[in-house]
Protein backbone atom coordinates (compact mmCIF):
# COMPACT_ATOMS: atom_id res chain seq x y z
CA UNK A 1 0.00 0.00 0.00
CA UNK A 2 1.25 3.47 -0.84
CA UNK A 3 2.20 5.46 2.25
CA UNK A 4 0.19 8.62 2.90
CA UNK A 5 2.73 10.16 5.24
CA UNK A 6 6.48 9.67 4.98
CA UNK A 7 9.19 11.07 7.19
CA UNK A 8 12.91 10.71 6.74
CA UNK A 9 15.50 11.41 9.46
CA UNK A 10 13.06 13.84 11.05
CA UNK A 11 14.61 15.73 13.96
CA UNK A 12 13.50 18.70 15.98
CA UNK A 13 15.11 20.62 18.85
CA UNK A 14 13.66 23.39 20.94
CA UNK A 15 16.85 25.21 21.79
CA UNK A 16 18.89 22.62 23.68
CA UNK A 17 15.89 20.40 24.31
CA UNK A 18 15.40 17.44 22.02
CA UNK A 19 11.87 17.19 20.67
CA UNK A 20 12.28 14.43 18.11
CA UNK A 21 15.32 12.57 16.86
CA UNK A 22 15.94 10.83 13.56
CA UNK A 23 12.43 9.58 12.89
CA UNK A 24 12.02 7.70 9.65
CA UNK A 25 8.68 6.05 9.03
CA UNK A 26 5.83 5.54 6.63
CA UNK A 27 2.18 5.72 7.56
CA UNK A 28 -0.39 3.97 5.42
CA UNK A 29 -4.19 4.40 5.43
CA UNK A 30 -5.96 3.11 8.53
CA UNK A 31 -5.70 3.99 12.19
CA UNK A 32 -2.26 4.42 13.69
CA UNK A 33 -1.73 5.02 17.39
CA UNK A 34 1.17 7.14 18.58
CA UNK A 35 1.93 6.03 22.08
CA UNK A 36 4.38 7.49 24.53
CA UNK A 37 4.65 9.03 27.97
CA UNK A 38 4.17 12.76 28.45
CA UNK A 39 7.01 14.70 26.88
CA UNK A 40 8.03 11.79 24.65
CA UNK A 41 7.70 13.80 21.42
CA UNK A 42 4.21 12.78 20.25
CA UNK A 43 2.90 16.33 19.85
CA UNK A 44 6.14 17.42 18.19
CA UNK A 45 5.77 14.59 15.68
CA UNK A 46 2.14 15.50 14.95
CA UNK A 47 2.99 19.19 14.57
CA UNK A 48 5.79 18.31 12.17
CA UNK A 49 3.61 16.12 9.97
CA UNK A 50 0.98 18.87 9.84
CA UNK A 51 3.56 21.53 8.96
CA UNK A 52 2.99 23.64 12.04
CA UNK A 53 6.65 23.59 12.96
CA UNK A 54 9.80 23.20 10.89
CA UNK A 55 12.10 20.21 11.30
CA UNK A 56 15.75 21.01 12.03
CA UNK A 57 16.76 18.00 9.98
CA UNK A 58 14.82 15.67 7.74
CA UNK A 59 11.78 15.79 5.52
CA UNK A 60 8.06 15.21 5.82
CA UNK A 61 5.86 14.33 2.85
CA UNK A 62 2.11 14.02 2.90
CA UNK A 63 0.76 12.33 -0.22
CA UNK A 64 4.15 12.95 -1.78
CA UNK A 65 4.04 16.70 -1.17
CA UNK A 66 5.96 18.88 1.26
CA UNK A 67 3.66 19.96 4.04
CA UNK A 68 5.05 23.20 5.47
CA UNK A 69 3.44 26.26 3.87
CA UNK A 70 1.53 24.01 1.47
CA UNK A 71 -1.89 25.23 2.50
CA UNK A 72 -3.70 23.29 -0.23
CA UNK A 73 -3.00 20.10 1.71
CA UNK A 74 -5.23 21.27 4.54
CA UNK A 75 -8.32 20.63 2.46
CA UNK A 76 -7.63 16.93 3.18
CA UNK A 77 -6.15 17.21 6.68
CA UNK A 78 -8.06 17.66 9.92
CA UNK A 79 -6.08 18.43 13.04
CA UNK A 80 -7.26 18.26 16.64
CA UNK A 81 -4.72 19.99 18.92
CA UNK A 82 -3.91 18.71 22.38
CA UNK A 83 -4.09 22.14 23.99
CA UNK A 84 -7.36 23.36 25.37
CA UNK A 85 -7.57 26.78 23.71
CA UNK A 86 -10.46 28.37 21.84
CA UNK A 87 -11.99 31.66 20.80
CA UNK A 88 -13.82 31.66 24.12
CA UNK A 89 -16.42 34.30 23.28
CA UNK A 90 -17.77 32.32 20.33
CA UNK A 91 -20.50 29.73 20.59
CA UNK A 92 -19.72 26.18 19.53
CA UNK A 93 -21.78 26.71 16.38
CA UNK A 94 -19.99 29.96 15.47
CA UNK A 95 -16.63 28.30 16.04
CA UNK A 96 -17.31 25.44 13.64
CA UNK A 97 -19.01 27.70 11.08
CA UNK A 98 -16.07 30.14 11.15
CA UNK A 99 -13.46 27.44 10.58
CA UNK A 100 -15.53 25.85 7.80
CA UNK A 101 -15.69 29.23 6.07
CA UNK A 102 -11.94 28.99 5.64
CA UNK A 103 -12.48 25.90 3.49
CA UNK A 104 -14.39 27.93 0.90
CA UNK A 105 -17.59 25.89 1.11
CA UNK A 106 -20.88 27.47 0.10
CA UNK A 107 -22.98 28.92 2.97
CA UNK A 108 -25.50 26.07 2.82
CA UNK A 109 -22.73 23.47 2.78
CA UNK A 110 -21.04 25.16 5.74
CA UNK A 111 -24.25 24.91 7.75
CA UNK A 112 -24.93 21.29 6.85
CA UNK A 113 -21.35 20.23 7.59
CA UNK A 114 -21.31 22.10 10.91
CA UNK A 115 -24.60 20.50 11.88
CA UNK A 116 -23.32 17.04 10.97
CA UNK A 117 -20.04 17.46 12.86
CA UNK A 118 -21.82 18.68 15.97
CA UNK A 119 -24.28 15.80 15.72
CA UNK A 120 -21.40 13.32 15.53
CA UNK A 121 -19.81 14.66 18.71
CA UNK A 122 -23.24 15.17 20.31
CA UNK A 123 -22.96 18.89 20.87
CA UNK A 124 -26.03 20.00 18.92
CA UNK A 125 -28.02 20.85 22.03
CA UNK A 126 -25.22 23.02 23.38
CA UNK A 127 -24.16 24.58 20.09
CA UNK A 128 -25.50 28.04 20.99
CA UNK A 129 -23.67 28.25 24.29
CA UNK A 130 -20.44 30.24 24.43
CA UNK A 131 -17.38 28.01 24.51
CA UNK A 132 -16.26 29.62 27.77
CA UNK A 133 -19.18 27.87 29.49
CA UNK A 134 -18.38 24.40 28.08
CA UNK A 135 -17.14 21.59 30.30
CA UNK A 136 -13.74 20.03 29.62
CA UNK A 137 -15.37 17.09 27.85
CA UNK A 138 -17.49 19.36 25.64
CA UNK A 139 -14.46 21.40 24.69
CA UNK A 140 -12.62 18.22 23.79
CA UNK A 141 -15.51 17.08 21.61
CA UNK A 142 -15.65 20.51 19.94
CA UNK A 143 -11.99 20.19 19.05
CA UNK A 144 -12.71 16.83 17.45
CA UNK A 145 -15.71 18.34 15.60
CA UNK A 146 -13.60 21.07 13.99
CA UNK A 147 -11.10 18.43 12.88
CA UNK A 148 -13.69 16.26 11.13
CA UNK A 149 -16.20 18.89 9.93
CA UNK A 150 -14.65 19.27 6.48
CA UNK A 151 -14.59 15.49 5.99
CA UNK A 152 -10.81 15.17 5.68
CA UNK A 153 -8.95 12.21 4.29
CA UNK A 154 -6.22 12.46 6.93
CA UNK A 155 -7.25 13.06 10.53
CA UNK A 156 -4.59 13.86 13.12
CA UNK A 157 -5.81 13.77 16.70
CA UNK A 158 -3.48 14.78 19.52
CA UNK A 159 -4.71 13.21 22.77
CA UNK A 160 -8.38 13.35 21.70
CA UNK A 161 -9.60 11.39 24.72
CA UNK A 162 -8.02 13.49 27.43
CA UNK A 163 -10.59 15.10 29.68
CA UNK A 164 -13.45 12.95 28.47
CA UNK A 165 -15.64 10.92 30.80
CA UNK A 166 -15.85 7.15 30.11
CA UNK A 167 -18.99 7.55 27.99
CA UNK A 168 -17.51 10.40 25.96
CA UNK A 169 -14.34 8.39 25.56
CA UNK A 170 -16.26 5.40 24.24
CA UNK A 171 -18.12 7.59 21.74
CA UNK A 172 -14.96 9.16 20.37
CA UNK A 173 -13.29 5.75 20.15
CA UNK A 174 -16.34 4.47 18.29
CA UNK A 175 -16.23 7.48 15.96
CA UNK A 176 -12.54 7.01 15.20
CA UNK A 177 -13.06 3.31 14.55
CA UNK A 178 -15.98 4.07 12.23
CA UNK A 179 -13.61 5.99 9.95
CA UNK A 180 -11.36 2.97 9.57
CA UNK A 181 -13.32 1.35 6.79
CA UNK A 182 -13.51 4.53 4.72
CA UNK A 183 -9.93 4.47 3.46
CA UNK A 184 -8.89 7.39 5.64
CA UNK A 185 -5.64 7.80 7.51
CA UNK A 186 -6.16 8.50 11.17
CA UNK A 187 -3.29 9.23 13.52
CA UNK A 188 -4.15 9.30 17.19
CA UNK A 189 -1.78 10.03 20.02
CA UNK A 190 -2.16 9.06 23.64
CA UNK A 191 -0.11 8.26 26.70
CA UNK A 192 -2.64 5.63 27.80
CA UNK A 193 -2.10 2.22 26.26
CA UNK A 194 -5.65 0.86 26.69
CA UNK A 195 -7.03 3.94 24.87
CA UNK A 196 -4.90 3.26 21.84
CA UNK A 197 -5.54 -0.45 22.12
CA UNK A 198 -9.27 0.20 21.92
CA UNK A 199 -8.86 1.97 18.57
CA UNK A 200 -6.14 0.20 16.65
CA UNK A 201 -3.64 -2.60 16.53
CA UNK A 202 -1.02 -0.54 14.68
CA UNK A 203 1.04 1.51 17.04
CA UNK A 204 4.19 3.56 17.10
CA UNK A 205 5.96 3.84 20.42
CA UNK A 206 7.79 7.11 21.00
CA UNK A 207 10.13 7.61 23.89
CA UNK A 208 12.53 10.49 24.52
CA UNK A 209 12.04 11.79 21.01
CA UNK A 210 12.83 8.50 19.31
CA UNK A 211 10.73 5.80 17.73
CA UNK A 212 11.19 3.04 20.23
CA UNK A 213 9.12 0.39 18.48
CA UNK A 214 6.43 0.17 15.85
CA UNK A 215 4.14 -2.48 14.57
CA UNK A 216 1.32 -4.65 15.77
CA UNK A 217 0.09 -3.99 19.27
CA UNK A 218 0.51 -7.66 20.20
CA UNK A 219 4.25 -7.30 19.82
CA UNK A 220 4.22 -4.33 22.17
CA UNK A 221 1.88 -6.15 24.52
CA UNK A 222 4.26 -9.09 24.67
CA UNK A 223 7.08 -6.75 25.56
CA UNK A 224 4.98 -5.10 28.21
CA UNK A 225 3.68 -8.35 29.65
CA UNK A 226 7.19 -9.48 30.52
CA UNK A 227 7.58 -6.32 32.57
CA UNK A 228 7.42 -7.17 36.31
CA UNK A 229 4.34 -5.47 37.69
CA UNK A 230 3.87 -4.31 41.22
CA UNK A 231 0.42 -4.75 42.72
CA UNK A 232 -0.61 -3.31 46.04
CA UNK A 233 -3.39 -4.98 48.04
CA UNK A 234 -4.86 -3.47 51.17
CA UNK A 235 -6.85 -6.13 53.04
CA UNK A 236 -7.86 -7.52 56.41
CA UNK A 237 -5.16 -10.24 56.57
CA UNK A 238 -2.19 -9.45 54.37
CA UNK A 239 0.12 -12.16 55.74
CA UNK A 240 -2.39 -14.93 55.24
CA UNK A 241 -3.07 -13.79 51.70
CA UNK A 242 0.68 -13.76 51.00
CA UNK A 243 1.08 -17.30 52.24
CA UNK A 244 -1.49 -18.48 49.70
CA UNK A 245 0.35 -17.38 46.57
CA UNK A 246 3.99 -17.16 47.65
CA UNK A 247 4.66 -20.57 46.09
CA UNK A 248 3.43 -19.42 42.63
CA UNK A 249 6.38 -19.15 40.22
CA UNK A 250 5.09 -15.91 38.71
CA UNK A 251 5.28 -14.15 42.10
CA UNK A 252 8.76 -12.67 42.36
CA UNK A 253 8.69 -10.62 45.58
CA UNK A 254 6.34 -9.78 48.44
CA UNK A 255 6.69 -6.81 50.77
CA UNK A 256 4.52 -5.97 53.76
CA UNK A 257 3.74 -2.50 54.93
CA UNK A 258 4.82 -1.47 58.40
CA UNK A 259 1.20 -1.47 59.55
CA UNK A 260 0.75 -5.01 58.21
CA UNK A 261 -2.53 -4.13 56.51
CA UNK A 262 -1.21 -4.12 52.95
CA UNK A 263 1.28 -5.93 50.79
CA UNK A 264 3.17 -5.21 47.60
CA UNK A 265 3.48 -8.11 45.18
CA UNK A 266 5.92 -8.11 42.29
CA UNK A 267 4.86 -10.45 39.49
CA UNK A 268 5.84 -11.14 35.92
CA UNK A 269 2.36 -12.39 35.04
CA UNK A 270 -0.24 -9.92 36.15
CA UNK A 271 -3.12 -11.67 34.39
CA UNK A 272 -2.54 -14.99 36.21
CA UNK A 273 -2.25 -13.25 39.55
CA UNK A 274 -5.46 -11.29 38.98
CA UNK A 275 -7.35 -14.46 38.01
CA UNK A 276 -6.22 -16.17 41.23
CA UNK A 277 -7.02 -13.34 43.63
CA UNK A 278 -10.87 -13.48 43.72
CA UNK A 279 -10.96 -17.14 44.74
CA UNK A 280 -8.32 -16.55 47.44
CA UNK A 281 -10.36 -13.69 48.88
CA UNK A 282 -13.54 -15.76 48.98
CA UNK A 283 -12.05 -19.03 50.24
CA UNK A 284 -10.11 -17.32 53.02
CA UNK A 285 -12.78 -14.73 53.85
CA UNK A 286 -10.36 -11.86 53.36
CA UNK A 287 -11.91 -8.40 53.18
CA UNK A 288 -10.31 -6.26 50.50
CA UNK A 289 -10.10 -2.49 50.89
CA UNK A 290 -8.10 -1.60 47.81
CA UNK A 291 -6.16 -3.10 44.90
CA UNK A 292 -3.88 -0.76 43.00
CA UNK A 293 -1.03 -1.02 40.58
CA UNK A 294 1.47 1.71 41.50
CA UNK A 295 3.61 1.26 38.40
CA UNK A 296 0.77 0.69 35.94
CA UNK A 297 1.62 3.63 33.75
CA UNK A 298 3.34 3.95 30.47
CA UNK A 299 6.38 5.70 31.89
CA UNK A 300 7.14 2.69 34.10
CA UNK A 301 6.71 0.34 31.18
CA UNK A 302 8.98 2.46 29.00
CA UNK A 303 11.57 2.67 31.75
CA UNK A 304 11.51 -1.10 31.91
CA UNK A 305 11.68 -1.55 28.15
CA UNK A 306 14.61 0.79 27.71
CA UNK A 307 16.39 -0.98 30.53
CA UNK A 308 16.51 1.74 33.16
Amino acid sequence: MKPIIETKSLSKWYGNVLGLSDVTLQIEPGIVGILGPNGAGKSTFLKLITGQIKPNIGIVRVKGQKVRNNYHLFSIIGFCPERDFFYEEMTGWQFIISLLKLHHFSPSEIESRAQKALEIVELVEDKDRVIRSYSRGMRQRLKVAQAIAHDPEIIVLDEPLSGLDPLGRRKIIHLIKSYKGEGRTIIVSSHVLPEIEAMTKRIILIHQGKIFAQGDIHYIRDLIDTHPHIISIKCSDARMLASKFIHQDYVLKVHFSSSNDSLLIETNNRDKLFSLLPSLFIENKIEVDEITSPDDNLQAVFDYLVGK
Partner: protein
Amino acid sequence: MIQKNTGKLSFFLSSVKNVYSIFLFMGRRAKKTKIFFLLSFLPVVIAFIIKFNQIFSGRGNVRGIYIFSNLIIVFYLQFLILILALFFGTSVGSEEIEGQTLTYLTTRPIPKSAIILGKYSAYTTLVIIMMAVGVLLSFFILNLNNLGRFSLYKILVRDVVVLALGIICYTAFFTFIGTFLKKSILVGLVFSFGWENVIQYFPGSTQRFSIVHYLKSLLPVPRTGRFSFLMFRLEPSPDGLAIFMLFLITAIFLSLACFLFSYKEYILED
Protein backbone atom coordinates in the same frame (compact mmCIF):
# COMPACT_ATOMS: atom_id res chain seq x y z
CA MET B 1 -8.98 15.56 -3.19
CA ILE B 2 -6.52 18.39 -2.65
CA GLN B 3 -8.00 21.65 -3.92
CA LYS B 4 -5.30 23.36 -5.98
CA ASN B 5 -5.93 27.02 -6.56
CA THR B 6 -2.38 28.26 -7.01
CA GLY B 7 -2.09 31.63 -8.68
CA LYS B 8 -5.75 32.42 -8.51
CA LEU B 9 -6.14 35.92 -7.21
CA SER B 10 -9.83 35.35 -6.61
CA PHE B 11 -9.01 32.42 -4.28
CA PHE B 12 -6.63 34.60 -2.30
CA LEU B 13 -9.11 37.46 -2.09
CA SER B 14 -11.85 35.05 -1.08
CA SER B 15 -9.57 33.73 1.70
CA VAL B 16 -8.93 37.29 2.90
CA LYS B 17 -12.65 38.03 2.78
CA ASN B 18 -13.49 34.93 4.83
CA VAL B 19 -10.89 35.76 7.47
CA TYR B 20 -12.12 39.37 7.45
CA SER B 21 -15.74 38.39 8.08
CA ILE B 22 -14.77 36.03 10.94
CA PHE B 23 -12.64 38.56 12.75
CA LEU B 24 -14.94 41.50 12.13
CA PHE B 25 -17.65 39.46 13.82
CA MET B 26 -15.34 38.34 16.65
CA GLY B 27 -13.73 41.75 17.04
CA ARG B 28 -17.12 43.43 17.48
CA ARG B 29 -17.89 41.19 20.43
CA ALA B 30 -14.44 41.23 22.04
CA LYS B 31 -14.01 42.78 25.48
CA LYS B 32 -11.05 44.74 24.15
CA THR B 33 -13.27 46.44 21.55
CA LYS B 34 -15.79 47.47 24.19
CA ILE B 35 -13.09 48.96 26.40
CA PHE B 36 -11.49 50.88 23.54
CA PHE B 37 -14.87 52.00 22.27
CA LEU B 38 -15.40 53.63 25.66
CA LEU B 39 -11.95 55.21 25.46
CA SER B 40 -12.76 56.60 22.02
CA PHE B 41 -15.71 58.39 23.65
CA LEU B 42 -13.41 60.41 25.88
CA PRO B 43 -13.13 63.31 23.41
CA VAL B 44 -16.92 63.28 23.13
CA VAL B 45 -17.12 63.78 26.88
CA ILE B 46 -14.52 66.54 26.66
CA ALA B 47 -16.47 68.18 23.82
CA PHE B 48 -19.65 67.92 25.84
CA ILE B 49 -18.03 69.52 28.92
CA ILE B 50 -16.61 72.36 26.81
CA LYS B 51 -19.96 72.99 25.15
CA PHE B 52 -21.81 72.77 28.44
CA ASN B 53 -19.36 75.25 29.95
CA GLN B 54 -19.72 77.59 26.96
CA ILE B 55 -23.50 77.58 27.18
CA PHE B 56 -23.83 78.04 30.91
CA SER B 57 -20.88 80.33 31.55
CA GLY B 58 -21.91 82.60 28.67
CA ARG B 59 -18.29 82.64 27.37
CA GLY B 60 -18.96 81.19 23.96
CA ASN B 61 -16.51 83.35 22.07
CA VAL B 62 -14.20 80.47 21.00
CA ARG B 63 -15.44 78.94 17.75
CA GLY B 64 -16.48 75.29 17.88
CA ILE B 65 -14.51 74.36 14.79
CA TYR B 66 -11.32 75.76 16.35
CA ILE B 67 -11.77 73.57 19.42
CA PHE B 68 -12.65 70.62 17.18
CA SER B 69 -9.46 71.03 15.11
CA ASN B 70 -7.35 71.12 18.26
CA LEU B 71 -9.15 68.08 19.61
CA ILE B 72 -8.28 66.21 16.41
CA ILE B 73 -4.59 67.05 16.72
CA VAL B 74 -4.15 66.82 20.48
CA PHE B 75 -6.33 63.87 21.29
CA TYR B 76 -6.88 61.86 18.12
CA LEU B 77 -3.70 62.30 16.10
CA GLN B 78 -1.20 62.26 18.95
CA PHE B 79 -2.91 59.77 21.23
CA LEU B 80 -6.08 57.88 20.38
CA ILE B 81 -5.33 56.53 16.92
CA LEU B 82 -1.89 55.45 18.13
CA ILE B 83 -3.33 53.59 21.11
CA LEU B 84 -6.10 51.96 19.06
CA ALA B 85 -3.76 50.99 16.22
CA LEU B 86 -1.19 49.69 18.72
CA PHE B 87 -3.55 47.39 20.60
CA PHE B 88 -5.47 46.15 17.57
CA GLY B 89 -2.50 46.00 15.19
CA THR B 90 -0.17 44.04 17.46
CA SER B 91 -3.00 41.62 18.30
CA VAL B 92 -3.43 40.58 14.65
CA GLY B 93 -0.62 38.08 15.06
CA SER B 94 0.15 38.02 18.76
CA GLU B 95 -3.33 37.16 20.06
CA GLU B 96 -3.29 33.97 17.97
CA ILE B 97 0.12 33.05 19.33
CA GLU B 98 -0.51 34.01 22.94
CA GLY B 99 -4.06 32.62 22.87
CA GLN B 100 -2.70 29.46 21.21
CA THR B 101 -5.51 29.52 18.63
CA LEU B 102 -3.04 29.84 15.76
CA THR B 103 -3.33 26.12 15.04
CA TYR B 104 -7.00 26.45 14.07
CA LEU B 105 -6.12 29.00 11.37
CA THR B 106 -2.88 27.57 10.04
CA THR B 107 -4.36 24.11 9.49
CA ARG B 108 -6.89 25.46 6.94
CA PRO B 109 -6.49 25.62 3.18
CA ILE B 110 -5.74 29.34 3.11
CA PRO B 111 -2.45 31.18 2.68
CA LYS B 112 -1.01 32.51 5.93
CA SER B 113 -0.75 35.96 4.35
CA ALA B 114 -4.55 35.90 3.91
CA ILE B 115 -4.88 35.44 7.68
CA ILE B 116 -2.79 38.55 8.31
CA LEU B 117 -4.50 40.66 5.65
CA GLY B 118 -8.00 39.52 6.64
CA LYS B 119 -7.44 40.17 10.34
CA TYR B 120 -5.68 43.45 9.64
CA SER B 121 -8.58 44.63 7.47
CA ALA B 122 -11.16 43.58 10.06
CA TYR B 123 -9.39 45.31 12.94
CA THR B 124 -8.66 48.42 10.87
CA THR B 125 -12.36 48.63 10.00
CA LEU B 126 -13.30 48.38 13.67
CA VAL B 127 -10.80 51.03 14.73
CA ILE B 128 -11.88 53.42 11.96
CA ILE B 129 -15.52 52.99 13.02
CA MET B 130 -14.61 53.65 16.66
CA MET B 131 -12.67 56.76 15.71
CA ALA B 132 -15.32 58.03 13.28
CA VAL B 133 -18.17 57.72 15.78
CA GLY B 134 -16.24 59.75 18.35
CA VAL B 135 -15.14 62.37 15.83
CA LEU B 136 -18.67 62.81 14.44
CA LEU B 137 -20.23 63.18 17.86
CA SER B 138 -17.52 65.63 18.99
CA PHE B 139 -18.03 67.62 15.81
CA PHE B 140 -21.79 67.87 16.23
CA ILE B 141 -21.55 68.78 19.92
CA LEU B 142 -18.90 71.46 19.40
CA ASN B 143 -20.59 72.97 16.33
CA LEU B 144 -24.13 72.78 17.58
CA ASN B 145 -24.77 76.40 16.65
CA ASN B 146 -23.26 76.18 13.15
CA LEU B 147 -24.51 72.90 11.77
CA GLY B 148 -25.89 74.63 8.70
CA ARG B 149 -22.43 75.78 7.53
CA PHE B 150 -21.33 73.58 4.61
CA SER B 151 -17.64 74.54 4.90
CA LEU B 152 -17.48 72.90 8.34
CA TYR B 153 -18.40 69.53 6.85
CA LYS B 154 -15.47 69.77 4.45
CA ILE B 155 -13.18 70.10 7.48
CA LEU B 156 -14.92 67.17 9.14
CA VAL B 157 -14.51 64.90 6.10
CA ARG B 158 -10.85 65.88 5.71
CA ASP B 159 -10.10 65.21 9.37
CA VAL B 160 -11.85 61.84 9.32
CA VAL B 161 -9.97 60.83 6.16
CA VAL B 162 -6.61 61.88 7.61
CA LEU B 163 -7.28 59.99 10.84
CA ALA B 164 -8.42 56.95 8.85
CA LEU B 165 -5.18 57.10 6.85
CA GLY B 166 -3.28 57.29 10.12
CA ILE B 167 -5.10 54.22 11.45
CA ILE B 168 -4.44 52.29 8.23
CA CYS B 169 -0.75 53.13 8.35
CA TYR B 170 -0.13 52.71 12.09
CA THR B 171 -2.12 49.45 12.25
CA ALA B 172 0.00 48.04 9.40
CA PHE B 173 3.17 48.99 11.27
CA PHE B 174 1.95 47.48 14.54
CA THR B 175 0.74 44.35 12.74
CA PHE B 176 4.32 43.87 11.60
CA ILE B 177 5.65 44.49 15.12
CA GLY B 178 3.13 41.97 16.50
CA THR B 179 4.23 39.22 14.15
CA PHE B 180 7.90 40.01 14.66
CA LEU B 181 8.40 40.64 18.38
CA LYS B 182 7.21 39.02 21.58
CA LYS B 183 7.00 42.22 23.62
CA SER B 184 5.24 44.07 20.84
CA ILE B 185 3.10 46.33 23.06
CA LEU B 186 6.14 47.67 24.91
CA VAL B 187 8.03 48.32 21.67
CA GLY B 188 4.87 49.88 20.21
CA LEU B 189 4.50 52.23 23.18
CA VAL B 190 8.14 53.34 22.83
CA PHE B 191 7.57 53.92 19.12
CA SER B 192 4.28 55.77 19.61
CA PHE B 193 5.16 58.05 22.45
CA GLY B 194 8.91 58.11 22.04
CA TRP B 195 9.94 58.05 18.42
CA GLU B 196 6.79 59.54 16.87
CA ASN B 197 6.50 62.28 19.48
CA VAL B 198 10.13 63.33 19.31
CA ILE B 199 11.27 62.84 15.74
CA GLN B 200 8.42 64.94 14.30
CA TYR B 201 9.93 68.06 15.90
CA PHE B 202 13.37 67.54 14.39
CA PRO B 203 14.23 70.10 11.76
CA GLY B 204 14.88 69.31 8.11
CA SER B 205 14.33 65.87 6.58
CA THR B 206 14.59 63.89 9.84
CA GLN B 207 10.92 64.46 10.69
CA ARG B 208 10.01 62.60 7.50
CA PHE B 209 11.02 59.40 9.28
CA SER B 210 7.85 59.63 11.35
CA ILE B 211 4.36 58.69 10.21
CA VAL B 212 2.79 61.61 12.07
CA HIS B 213 4.73 64.04 9.87
CA TYR B 214 2.77 62.92 6.80
CA LEU B 215 -0.52 63.03 8.69
CA LYS B 216 0.14 66.53 9.98
CA SER B 217 1.13 67.59 6.47
CA LEU B 218 -2.43 66.81 5.38
CA LEU B 219 -3.98 68.99 8.09
CA PRO B 220 -4.18 72.79 8.10
CA VAL B 221 -1.55 74.33 10.32
CA PRO B 222 -2.85 76.32 13.31
CA ARG B 223 0.01 78.80 13.55
CA THR B 224 -1.56 80.59 16.47
CA GLY B 225 -3.47 79.59 19.57
CA ARG B 226 -2.88 77.39 22.56
CA PHE B 227 -1.97 74.25 20.64
CA SER B 228 0.12 75.78 17.87
CA PHE B 229 3.22 74.27 19.53
CA LEU B 230 2.08 70.89 18.26
CA MET B 231 2.87 72.05 14.75
CA PHE B 232 6.22 73.43 15.89
CA ARG B 233 8.87 73.11 13.20
CA LEU B 234 6.57 71.21 10.89
CA GLU B 235 7.95 71.42 7.40
CA PRO B 236 4.98 69.86 5.63
CA SER B 237 5.35 67.51 2.70
CA PRO B 238 3.07 68.12 -0.30
CA ASP B 239 -0.34 66.42 -0.01
CA GLY B 240 0.32 63.98 -2.86
CA LEU B 241 3.67 62.91 -1.43
CA ALA B 242 2.20 62.56 2.07
CA ILE B 243 -0.60 60.29 0.84
CA PHE B 244 1.83 58.28 -1.29
CA MET B 245 4.21 57.83 1.66
CA LEU B 246 1.41 56.72 3.97
CA PHE B 247 0.30 54.06 1.49
CA LEU B 248 3.90 53.04 0.82
CA ILE B 249 4.61 52.59 4.55
CA THR B 250 1.38 50.59 4.87
CA ALA B 251 2.29 48.35 1.93
CA ILE B 252 5.84 47.77 3.16
CA PHE B 253 4.89 46.82 6.70
CA LEU B 254 1.95 44.68 5.65
CA SER B 255 4.16 42.81 3.18
CA LEU B 256 6.78 42.28 5.86
CA ALA B 257 4.12 41.07 8.31
CA CYS B 258 2.73 38.62 5.74
CA PHE B 259 6.21 37.34 4.89
CA LEU B 260 7.19 36.89 8.53
CA PHE B 261 3.94 35.22 9.47
CA SER B 262 4.29 32.81 6.57
CA TYR B 263 7.86 31.78 7.21
CA LYS B 264 8.55 32.37 10.89
CA GLU B 265 8.10 29.39 13.17
CA TYR B 266 5.82 30.09 16.10
CA ILE B 267 6.30 27.65 18.96
CA LEU B 268 3.21 27.75 21.13
CA GLU B 269 4.42 27.64 24.71
CA ASP B 270 2.92 25.77 27.64
